[in-house]
């Protein structure tokens, strides 16, 4: 009691109190302990806030995850879009090169091998100006011809079908022949070329193009079909045949174009029609 009073008196009475050094010494020792203790305790006292922020963080994580998923989806779509844009570009380039007007269409169904006919359904029909016996191409080359057109869909016979025969011409020598499918689209989906003139030897890598029919039905002229992969001569029937690797990949057909007359009425844009006279 007396000691207390003494300290109080000492502290109050003098300006330069003798208590000050003791105070600072205490601060030096206890201060760190205090801060240490409070840093231990703070998480406990902050617990409600932590729980709250945990919830907020969880919500944030959920938001971020959703955004992430959206972005991913967008990215995936971008790749698809880019591919489709590239295909469309290719088709556009093909129409510019060949000078034909084409109606773009997408392959929506593919006949199974169990049917033994290699046909696909496309999503353009008579409403889009597609008629039977029109040539179907894609960015790479000849795909087939329209067998039947309904209002909104059409059935296309692929050149790889065993019953498909296309008049072909070797681009290098202008020699004529017939390109026949093998009914096999899986794997390489090769075609056979029977040349009319047995003395012609096609070179490897020669491009075969269509020679076209009257009025462009069923095949218009000058569409590349494929390249010569190997040549076989058959002494029995005096013709030479070549194995053709088609330019179009029949297993991953997506965007195709149907060659139509330039003045066709269509419910969609006809590529290459506007720059026709």
């Amino acid at each position: 009691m007396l000691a207390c009073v003494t300290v109080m008196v000492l502290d109050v009475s003098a300006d330069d109190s003798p208590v000050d050094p003791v105070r600072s010494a205490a601060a030096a020792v206890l201060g760190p302990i205090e801060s240490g203790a409070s840093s231990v305790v703070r998480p406990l006292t902050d617990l409600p806030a932590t729980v709250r922020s945990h919830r907020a963080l969880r919500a944030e994580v959920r938001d971020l995850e959703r955004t992430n998923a959206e972005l991913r989806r967008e990215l995936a779509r971008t790749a698809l879009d880019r591919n489709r844009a590239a295909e469309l570009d290719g088709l556009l380039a093909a129409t510019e090169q060949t000078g034909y007007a084409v109606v773009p269409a997408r392959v929506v169904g593919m006949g199974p091998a169990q049917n033994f006919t290699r046909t696909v359904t496309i999503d353009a029909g008579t409403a889009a100006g597609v008629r039977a016996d029109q040539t179907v191409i894609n960015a790479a080359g000849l795909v087939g011809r329209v067998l039947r057109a309904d209002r909104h869909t059409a059935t296309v016979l692929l050149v790889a079908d065993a019953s498909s025969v296309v008049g072909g011409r070797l681009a290098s020598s202008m020699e004529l022949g017939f390109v026949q499918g093998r009914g096999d689209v899986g794997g390489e989906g090769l075609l056979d070329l029977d040349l009319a003139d047995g003395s012609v030897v096609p070179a490897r890598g020669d491009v075969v193009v269509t020679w076209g029919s009257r009025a462009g039905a069923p095949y218009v002229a000058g569409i590349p079909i494929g390249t010569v992969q190997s040549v076989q001569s058959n002494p029995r029937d005096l013709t030479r045949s070549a194995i053709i690797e088609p330019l179009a990949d029949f297993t991953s057909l997506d965007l195709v174009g149907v060659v139509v007359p330039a003045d066709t009425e269509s419910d969609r844009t006809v590529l290459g029609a506007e720059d026709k006279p």
Partner: protein
Amino acid sequence: MALVRSVTFTALVVVALVLQTSVFSHLALAGVVPNLVLLLVVAMAIARGPEAAAVLGLLAGLALDLMPPADHVAGRWALALVVVGYLAGRVRSDAGSSAVAAVVTVAACSFVGTSVFALTGLVLGDGGVTVAAVLKVVPVSVGYDVLVTPVVLPLALAVLRRLEATRVAW
């Protein structure tokens, strides 16, 4: 009730057809897709017997013949699936007894169905059927059908049996 049933059957056939032509064509093995319609007919045979399965086989087969991009003489798949439905219905009690028996039935039906379709093609000279192509396609299609059986057959059977149960309840 008959209306509900026929609507359900139609829906099942349409779903099978669309899956087969537009979805599984991206998953084709050497161009062969699983014949879901055939599996549906087999499921019908196990659930309801040969007559119902043959009728469903006829109708579903006709749909398969007429649905684009099919381009063969119509009726070939119908004939094949009628035969399949009848045969599967005849062995119905055995086929429904165990999973292995069901898979064996599907394999046999797939073989018979694809072969009948191919044979009619050869006889009619239709659609570029060659013996070489048949020999290649039939094993692949049997294999693929067996592969999807564990997923498709229980599903189809569940729907058909549920339909049967509601009919009894009514």
